[in-house]
């Protein structure tokens, strides 16, 4: 660490600075513009007329507030329930896959859990819609919840299983050796050690659910909206600054989640 740090210093490569700046601008300039203009006093989305919170007030009490409130409520309820159920299923799946020793079809099981991550979302959306139609399941909030729960599982599974693979078998064996039952070994030793992975998994699933548009748009019933579909609906009638205010708030929620997730995964309690 001391000797090699100068020789391979990436900052000395030609073009490092411009490429870095370009990437940062492409990634963050749009977000920055939306955030700044959400505080604009003007009705226009491009002309700055001074600092104001009017669009935030508009989101909560304006003519469209009722629609957005219902949509936001739907989004958060669905995200919380879907992420909770998906995290539970993923935790059990990871326990089975990693703790139950080798079993037949283990490779296949892993593939089946991870595959949905690679299937184009539009295909999943169409398939889910056809499935609900085929079993004559009436579309509404429930269809969104079921679909979200299902597609959140692989997202929750990844951090949980990664975490679990880092936990050696000997902790559990030590617990059993010290007279704990299997259940006690799981709840008192394994679960606390897995907690960072489980929390990360939950947060990831939550964000994925909160943010989902394509599948939701396909399986939602008429008149049922989540925040993304409501925003999309509003944008179709022209972009108003209140959309930027909502987007900024969503962005804030994401930043909080990601930050929490980062600190949780950094607190490695096995070392």
């Amino acid at each position, binding site marked *: 660490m001391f000797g090699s740090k100068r020789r391979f210093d990436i900052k000395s490569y030609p073009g490092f600075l411009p490429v870095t700046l370009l990437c940062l601008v492409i990634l963050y300039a749009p977000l920055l513009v939306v955030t700044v203009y959400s505080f604009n006093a003007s009705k226009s989305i491009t002309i700055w007329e001074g600092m104001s919170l009017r669009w935030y007030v508009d989101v909560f009490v304006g003519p469209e507030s009722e629609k957005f409130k219902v949509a936001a409520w739907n989004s958060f309820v669905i995200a919380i329930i879907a992420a909770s159920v998906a995290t539970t299923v993923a935790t059990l799946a990871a326990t089975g896959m990693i703790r139950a020793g080798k079993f037949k079809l283990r490779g296949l099981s892993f593939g089946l859990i991870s595959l949905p991550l690679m299937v184009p979302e539009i295909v999943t959306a169409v398939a889910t819609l056809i499935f609900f139609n085929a079993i004559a399941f009436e579309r509404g909030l429930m269809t969104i919840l079921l679909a979200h729960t299902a597609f959140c599982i692989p997202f929750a599974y990844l951090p949980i299983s990664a975490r679990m693979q880092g936990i*050696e078998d*000997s*902790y559990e*064996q*030590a*617990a*059993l*050796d*010290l*007279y*704990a*039952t299997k259940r*006690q070994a799981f709840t008192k*030793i394994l679960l*606390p*050690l897995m907690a960072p992975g489980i929390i990360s998994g939950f947060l990831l699933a939550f964000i994925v659910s909160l943010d989902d548009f394509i599948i939701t748009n396909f399986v939602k019933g008429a008149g049922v909206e989540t925040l993304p579909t409501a925003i999309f609906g509003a944008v179709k009638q022209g972009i108003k600054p209140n959309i930027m205010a909502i987007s900024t708030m969503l962005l804030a929620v994401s930043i909080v989640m990601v930050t929490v997730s980062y600190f949780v995964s950094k607190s490695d*309690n*096995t*070392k």
Partner: protein
Amino acid sequence: MNQDNIAINVQRAVKRYGTFTALKEISLSIYDNEFFTLLGPSGCGKTTLLRMIAGFEDVTEGAIQLFGQEIETLPPNKRPVNTVFQNYALFPHMSILDNVAFGLEMLGRSKSEARAKAGEMLELVQLSQFAKRKPSQLSGGQQQRVALARALAPQPKVLLLDEPLSALDLKLRKAMQIELKHLQRETGITFIFVTHDQEEALTMSDRIAVMSAGELQQLGSPRDIYEAPRNMFVADFIGETNLLEVSVDDIQNGRATCHLGGGHELTCNEVQGIGVGAKVHMSLRPERLFISEAAKETASLRGKVVENIFVGTDISTIVDLADGPNFIVRTSNSDRGNKRIFEPGSDVFVNMELGAARLLVD
């Protein structure tokens, strides 16, 4: 060690993984209050046997009894034995005190009682001042002692130790060997210790079971194993030795006269099961040999000194026997006044007392 009371009785225990046999019909008895060591190279089945006693591996065939009670079908948490794991496996999210109290709490003791007892255990291993710390804040040697305290706290009938010293550096390992031995005497608990380090086994054990390829090679006191190895594997694995192929020419009055070709002859004690005409191996410990200018009656091994190697406490002299193999002779540096060191190229005889050479059954 109490020979009337058998702590662990392993009867014809077999362990198979699919078609691979890790343990081939092992039978042995471990006495109450004994420091017993399972010694062997990696893959010999010693850890498998330990894990079978702990309950982490099931027994394919045979039986294991703990003070007369069949335990081979009990889950690990129903067996009154505790394990010190190779990597210690201290619960990283718990304090040192909670780690040590864990077993007692799981046994149903109240939290305060378990903690009080855990505090005593920490005192025993001299770590009371670290009770509130997390395992990661302790050094390797300290973690090792916590693991020991944790395993001893529920007062198991037998303590199982799976190569617990292998991660420590040499000095600390030596200190821990003595501490372990003291702890075993103080607590009176039967220790079953697994190691691949023969020196460690010799230092600490009341008895040693030498294992190789899933089989028990020899069971005996450290002295038995070292001085009267039963076979080539044991002679070679324990300590340094000269292994020779010899023919037994004559046996009289309990003494066997053997030759090894090239006109070299030597006499040693008879070993049961080896008769006249047998072609067997012989083990000669280098420290029991000495070099002189003339032949003695027990041996006539003529050769030339090749090299003297200084190894701290001893000098190793390599002697090339005329028409024979190379010999290693060790001379203690404390004896230097009495024994001559011959320069390379000197013509010498390798000599020994009767009993220094040991015939090996197989």
